[in-house]
Structure formats: structure tokens, C-alpha cells
């Protein structure tokens, strides 16, 4: 018998409201044990929740959703409590005393939704992201996934590929029938829109970038003011700042969210041609490697040394004078407006490089499968239909794996719906 599980499904108390969800075959009786009676399905009702000694625990808005048309596919009860720590703890303790009812393990609600066919794999992955989302951008991307954005896109691709398969199969299995001969033959160019859409999807930043942040690397020669700017951008003294050149010998990282975008700010050792300090040498090595991995480079040094695409910074503007039109930004940590302006510049550049993140952001698993399908589709040339069909089959298999569905039936339906076959 399946256990009935419960968990707090709103944020940590204290809060105005705390929602506890109970899912499983005993959800109804467990809810009833606390609330006395449950309101009719899908209707909110105010109930007094009591413990086994009839002492009142809370007044709660109570809802009952009968399975299988629920988020988990099972009977589901929701208790909307007053969000104090003590209230939540008391209700949880009371539920845990009921036989066959226990606290849910992490991810167990989603697991049940997946097992009960309420979500496909891609949606479940999106939901998991949603629960982990910390920034607005992460939330939007995860929501798009959980609502089936990727599933819909991949389904559209599969439909297009089914049609291509159907054409090839019609030519292979029924090529001698005039119906098929009349229909236009398979044209590999018909796959171009799908291929382009797949390439565009792969060009989107991976979800890991959203989770871990856009990498902003501060680079430049020693003593250029990198660490000071690092601290100013963070708004706290994370790096040790001295007048001694080469103070920062290793790489320093800090995470920060601006405009709903997560950033990883990286302060690096000053780039020097030579150093006698072996630790600084390693730091410089790492700094160079980081320049390659950076999404955005803030360059605090001579303009002619700036890496391509770098944002050039005229730092310590209070001490030095710059020709403003030669630099992207001229900043001083003592003038907050210049730091804010730099931040807006970084944020808009990040938004540009991340693209439209209200859309779907593929996971590594998705990227691999889409990439595998893409390789196959690019091999299709219209020469040997048999091999084209084989490449299509593997591509379909890979895309089907994203959703976990079989593409053969869809192809046969397309085949028979389109052509009048058979003698």
C-alpha cells in the first residue's frame, strides 16, 4: 500500500499563511481526523483543526481534491494555516501520529506526479527547477518548462519529423502505388525549419547558467583597482584591498542578484608578465583560464591590451583622468552613481547574452538529446531513403526520450491519414 505523505508546501514559517499538503490514499481520512469533516471536493471550507484530545490547533481553510485529477494523481488535502512556527509544528506532529501517514521525502510529491502520469519528464524537471528557483529569471524559465513549454516544442518537432517519416515510409512501402507517386516526394529541405529551431534552442544558455549565474570576470594588470571595484559592485568588502600591488593572488568569487539575474562576480589576480611568487603565478594562470570562461569581462587596464568583447573600465576616476569617450564606463567607488551605471550596463549586456529567458531553457539532458537528434537530421540527404529513414528513426528516438514517448505510432497515423494506400 502506498504511504500517505504530507509536507509544508509554502515557504518557511513564520509567514502570513502556511499551506500543508497531504497526498495519498489516506489523505481524506487524515484531513478528516484533524478537521472533523471535509468540505465538498474542490471547495474551500473553514474548519477548526483539533488534535486527538480535542484541543483546537488552528482555524484553517481546508480543501479536498479527489484523485486522479490532482497535482499528484492521488487524493489530495490542503490545509491553509496561520503561518506561525508553532501552528505548523503542531499540525505536522499531529499528522505524523496517524498510521500510514508520514512526512514526505524531498521531491516526493513531484515523484508521485511523474509516476502517476500527471507530468512528463521534461515538466517534472521544470517543476524541480521552479522549487529551486531563487531569482525572477530562474522562476520564469522554470515555469515555462513546468507548464510544458519544452514538451510542446519537442512535440511540434516530432510532429514535423513524423510527417517526414511518413513520406519516406510511403515511398518505401507503397512506392508502386499511384497515390504515393502523385504526392510530392520527400524533400530533405522540409526538415530545415526543425533543424533551425533545434539550433536556436541549443544556442540558448543552458539552465545551469541561470542557476549558477552569469560569470562576470574583473581583469586587468596588478593594482588597477579590481578588488575595490569588486567590493563596490557587491556592496560589501569581500576582497582585501591594499595599495600593495598583487594583493589578490587567487581567484575570489561572490554571487549576487541584480535585476532578477544571478551573477557570479569573479575577482582575479592582476595579470603580470612575470612574477617570482609561485602562488601569484598560479593565480595568474587561473585568471587567464577564467577569461575564457567569462560571459562578461570587465577590463581595468590599457585599452590596447583589452580582450575582444570586454567592457572597458576607466577605474579610480577620482584619482585619474580618462577620456570618457574611449571607455565603456568611467567609475569611481566613491561616486555610487558610476557604480550603478556600470551595473545597468552589465545587466543589459547579460540580458542580451541570455536571450529571451521567458522562453524555454534546456537542461543538459535535453541539450544532449537535441544535439544527438540534430546530428542525425543533418545526415539526411534524400539520396538513400533507407538511410534517411534510419537517421530519422534515431532522431525521433532521441527527441521522444525527452518526453518519454514512442514516435512510431504517430508516424503511422500520419502515414495513413495522408495517403490513400492499399490496393
Amino acid at each position, binding site marked *: 500500500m502506498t504511504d500517505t505523505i504530507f509536507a509544508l508546501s509554502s515557504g518557511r514559517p513564520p509567514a502570513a499563511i502556511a499551506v500543508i499538503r497531504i497526498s495519498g490514499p489516506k489523505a481524506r481520512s487524515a484531513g478528516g481526523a484533524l478537521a472533523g469533516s471535509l468540505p465538498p471536493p474542490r471547495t474551500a471550507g473553514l474548519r477548526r483543526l483539533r488534535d486527538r484530545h480535542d484541543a483546537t490547533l488552528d482555524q484553517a481553510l481546508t480543501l479536498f481534491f479527489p484523485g486522479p485529477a490532482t497535482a499528484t494523481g492521488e487524493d489530495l488535502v490542503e490545509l491553509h494555516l496561520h503561518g506561525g512556527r508553532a501552528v505548523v509544528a503542531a499540525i505536522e506532529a499531529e499528522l505524523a501520529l496517524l498510521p500510514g501517514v508520514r512526512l514526505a521525502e524531498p521531491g516526493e510529491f513531484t515523484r508521485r506526479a511523474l509516476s502517476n502520469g500527471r507530468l512528463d519528464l521534461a515538466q517534472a524537471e521544470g517543476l524541480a527547477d521552479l522549487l529551486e528557483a531563487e531569482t525572477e529569471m530562474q522562476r520564469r524559465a522554470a515555469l515555462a518548462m513546468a507548464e510544458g513549454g519544452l514538451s510542446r516544442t519537442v512535440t511540434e518537432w516530432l510532429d514535423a519529423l513524423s510527417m517526414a517519416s511518413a513520406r519516406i515510409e510511403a515511398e518505401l512501402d507503397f512506392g508502386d502505388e499511384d497515390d504515393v507517386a502523385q504526392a510530392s516526394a520527400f524533400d530533405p529541405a522540409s526538415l530545415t525549419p526543425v533543424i533551425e529551431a533545434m539550433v536556436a534552442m541549443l544556442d540558448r544558455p543552458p539552465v545551469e547558467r541561470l542557476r549558477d549565474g552569469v560569470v562576470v570576470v574583473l581583469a586587468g594588470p596588478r593594482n588597477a583597482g579590481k578588488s575595490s571595484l569588486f567590493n563596490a559592485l557587491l556592496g560589501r568588502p569581500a576582497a582585501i584591498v591594499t595599495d600593495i600591488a598583487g594583493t589578490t593572488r587567487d581567484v575570489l568569487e561572490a554571487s549576487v542578484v541584480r535585476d532578477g539575474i544571478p551573477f557570479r562576480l569573479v575577482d582575479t589576480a592582476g595579470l603580470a608578465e612575470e612574477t617570482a611568487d609561485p602562488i601569484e603565478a598560479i593565480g595568474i594562470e587561473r585568471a587567464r583560464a577564467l577569461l575564457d570562461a567569462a560571459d562578461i569581462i570587465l577590463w581595468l587596464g590599457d585599452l590596447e591590451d583589452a580582450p575582444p568583447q570586454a567592457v572597458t573600465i576607466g577605474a579610480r576616476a577620482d584619482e585619474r583622468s580618462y577620456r570618457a569617450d574611449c571607455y565603456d564606463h568611467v567609475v569611481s567607488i566613491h561616486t555610487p552613481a558610476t557604480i550603478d551605471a556600470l551595473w545597468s550596463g552589465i545587466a543589459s549586456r547579460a540580458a542580451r547574452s541570455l536571450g529571451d529567458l521567458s522562453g524555454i531553457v534546456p537542461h543538459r539532458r535535453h541539450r544532449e538529446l537535441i544535439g544527438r537528434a540534430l546530428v542525425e537530421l543533418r545526415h539526411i540527404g534524400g539520396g538513400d531513403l533507407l538511410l534517411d529513414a534510419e537517421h530519422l528513426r534515431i532522431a525521433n528516438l532521441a527527441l521522444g526520450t525527452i518526453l518519454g514517448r514512442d514516435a512510431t505510432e504517430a*508516424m503511422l497515423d500520419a502515414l*495513413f491519414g495522408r495517403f*490513400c494506400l492499399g*490496393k
Partner: protein
Amino acid sequence: MKQFDVVVVGGGHAGTEAAAAAARRGARVALISQALAQVGTMSCNPSIGGLGKGHLVREVDALDGLMARAADDAGIHYRMLNRSKGLAVQGPRLQADRRRYRASIHRQLADYPNVTLIEGEATALETQGAVTTGAILADGTRLETRAIVLATGTFLGGKIFRGLDRAAGGRIDERPANLLGEQLRALSLPMGRLKTGTPPRLDGRTIDWARLEPQPSDVDPWRMSPMTNTPRLPQLACAITRTSERTHDVIRRGLATSPLFSGDIEGGGPRYCPSIEDKVHRFGDRDGHQIFLEPEGLDDAWIYPNGISTSLDVETQTAMVRTISGLERAQIVQHGYAVEYDYIDPRSLDHRLALGAIPGVFCAGQLNGTTGYEEAAAQGVVAGLNAAAYACDLEPMIVDRARGYIGVMIDDLVLQGVSEPYRMLTARAEYRLALRADNAETRLSEWAGSLGALTARRQEHVRRRSRMREAARAGDDRTASADIVREVAEDRRYAPYLERQSEEVERMRRDGNIAIFTDGAALRTIPGLSTEMIERLELASPRTLDEASRVRGVTPAAIAALWLHARKRSA
């Protein structure tokens, strides 16, 4: 009292192959047919093979079945379909002389001393407890047996429709098998109705051949079976014509009396072999449909107009034919009709084609929801081999999806069931590049030989050909016959793809080892399975995770739940 190991009910393509296959494994076999003279009759079109179907014929032959050699004995027109497209989708197809085909089947069966032909109607299966013990005939004869193969074709509850006329029977002038059908229904086996049909037959002497485009037989002398060494019969040409708008008008006017559109026929017909009235109805925008005029025999004037299967009334059929180019004066010698018949939901069978509900009973052919001689014959072989195994305590013989189209078909049938008569298509096979019509012998014969399913003569043939193949693979083509040289060359051409597929196959076979329980009680203990999933799994009763993944409508989520459960159990 007569004692047998295996009793086969039905003498069509499935029944005759089942009887011969069981006999090859050493069983004492009885074949019961209502009319022995009709054993081996081609009741619909006079052709054998085609795309996918030709693969099945070659596989039946590789298992030493009768069909390919009978086809060669009777072939009056050979055509290799898809000749320009790669061996994996080339479909050997031939037109057979009906009489010579039947004669060849009779002759081949007579070569099996352990097959007894019995004329009569099987009316009941006899069981003791859960074990099959015998078959009862209409005249009261009781045959004692341990295994029964049902291959009743369209005769179980068969009903013929033509216009407003109705008749009982599986073929014109032949009685249906109703008592046996009643017994099966009484056992509450899951059964349903399906429909098939035939076109009117024409007198070839009344066709204006000069006006039509002829289609000659292939010149190169390929044969259906590598065992065949006799010369070809004289070859005839087929011809092509087509329906016209006038034809379609006549059909539309006649629809009022069509049993298809009146709702009289409840059984589903195949999408890929629709009647001409269906085609006109579903594809109203087409101005014509192709018709192949196929001779039915060398010394026989009957012509089979392939493409205008119909159950319209007699007058409409005549008027319709007269609107077709070349057929303006054609005489109809037998009108077309539709047949509706009982079939058993094949999900109640296992991969041996054994009925789960009654141990010892096997089913093959149209009874299982398929269409076509080739599909029937292929199932007949598997049912016969396994009925003999059951009766004589031998190893079962199951062809999996990677070994042959036979395996693809049976796997589809027993796991997915049917919603229309099942026809083989090359598109159904995942491992198509490996499952070619030209390498059926390589894939199946040695395996069959190791399980004692080949005659001594075939064994010798296989040994000789294996030596040729080995030599050809080593680069020595001097001794190999032309078809083997081609086979080896094709293997080389597809080598990288074959390698990739064989990895896939290995993965499938490995996953196939994860056993699952699918009886209802066990399924209900698995968290996360909906009632619908439990029902689907219980009905198809897959034995492994891999099989479960191919059951129609079973969601990936359910597979995940089964997998989690299986893993937990083994931990």
C-alpha cells in the same frame, strides 16, 4: 480413439504451416478442415509477398515452411518491389496460379508422414481441469491431443455481405464454424469482430487488353525460396488501369445499399486495404484510383482486379466495372463481397501464440486479428513449433524483434492488440537494416536447426549455404551463389549502421531481462500505477520491462514506476 500430439483446426495458410512446423519438430499432427480439397486455397488475391510481406515469406521459408516453395511452384509473374531502393526494403512479390499453388501445398503436406488430414468440422475443445485433452468433431469423432492450434481464418462466426444480401460463411459457398465460436465466447475470451473484403472477379477473355498498360514479369530469374531449383513456369503480364470520375459517380449512387455505410458491419476494416467505396468516400478529391489486373492462373481466364474490393450490390458492381477503361465489356464471374468474422484479442496470447486462459491452445492467422496470407503463415509456423514444444516437452521457439519480422509482428500483436486487421509494413521494424528479405536464412535457419525445427534436407541446404557465406565474407566469391554475394555486399554497405543497431539490440535484450509481475494483485501493490495502467498491463501481461514499454498506451511514468518497483524488489 485417435491419439495425436497436436491437432490443427483449419487448412489455410496458418493451419497448413502450423501442421508442417509441428511435424518438423517431431509431433504427431492431425489437420482438420471442413473441405480437404480446399486446403491451401488462396481465398483472396492471387499474389504472395510484397513489402514486409515478402520478408515474412522469406522468414517462413528460412524456418522450412511451405509458402515460398508453393509460390515458386505456382509463380506466373515475378516482381521485385523497390528494386531501386536498397535490399532492406525490397519486397519479393509474385502472382501465383491458384490451382498449382494449392496442389503444391497438398504435395508438400503429403511429404510429412506424421501429418494426418481429417475432413470434418471441429466443434469443441475438450479440457480436463486447465489442461487441453482433445478436440471433438461434428460427427462425434474425438481426437485425443495435448495441444490444439486454432487457425480458423474468417470462418469463426463468418458472415458474408453484398449489397442487402447476407449469408453465413467464411468464403462463398462454405459454411462458418459457429459451434467452436460459441464455445470460445462461452469461455469469456476477449473477442471482437473484424472485416475484410474481395473485389469482383472478371473473365479475362472479355477484357480489352490492347488498351491497357502491360506490366511484364521481372526478367532476372530470382525465386522466393533458395531451395527452389526448378525452372519458372511460363510468365504472364499483368496490366494497369484506373477508376474514373464516372466510376466514382456510380459508386456514390450505390452507397444506399452498402452494408459498410448502413452500419450493418460492425467490424473494423483495414485502413491500408480499403474497399473502393471507402476510398471514394474518404478521398473524394481523387479523380481516380489505380487497379492492377492480375491473372489467377495459366489455364484459367479469371482475373483479379486488385484495388476495387467492394461489398456493393450486384448491379452497382457491374455498372462500376463497365466505367473502367478496358473493362467496358468485362464479364463478372464472381461478385465481390465483404466478410465479417470473430477474432480473439491477441493480447490474450503470449509470444508463443499460446492462449493464456487454456494451456495447450495456440492461435494463428486472421483469428488473431491479422490480414494477409503471409502474416497468417508466419504465425502458423510459430504456433506449430510451440504447440509441438508444449506437447512433446521441447524448448519454446520465440522470434524476437531483432531476429525477424515474424518477431516484430507477434510482439506488436500480443502487446499492443489490434484496432484494425494487422498488416506487416517494413516501417514497423526498428532494425530494418538488419532484417532484410535477402538475409532471412542467415538470421533464422541455423537457429531453427539447432532447435530441431528443420527437415534433414533443409539442414543440408543450410550447411552448404553457410559455407558459401563464410567464403564470401572472407572475400572468396567463387563458390557462392549470386544472392549470397549480394547479401554479403549489402552487409558491408550498411556495416556502421548495423553495428549501431546491434548495440541497440543488445541494450534491448539486456533491459528485457528485468522481469516484472503483471498479474492484477501484484500490480496493485506497485505505487504510482493508475487503474488504467493496471488494466492495460494486466491485459497484455508483458513479462519484462522492455515488453511493458511497448504496450499500447502505457505511459513512461508507469514504466518508471515498474522499474522502481523491480529495482526495489531485487535490492
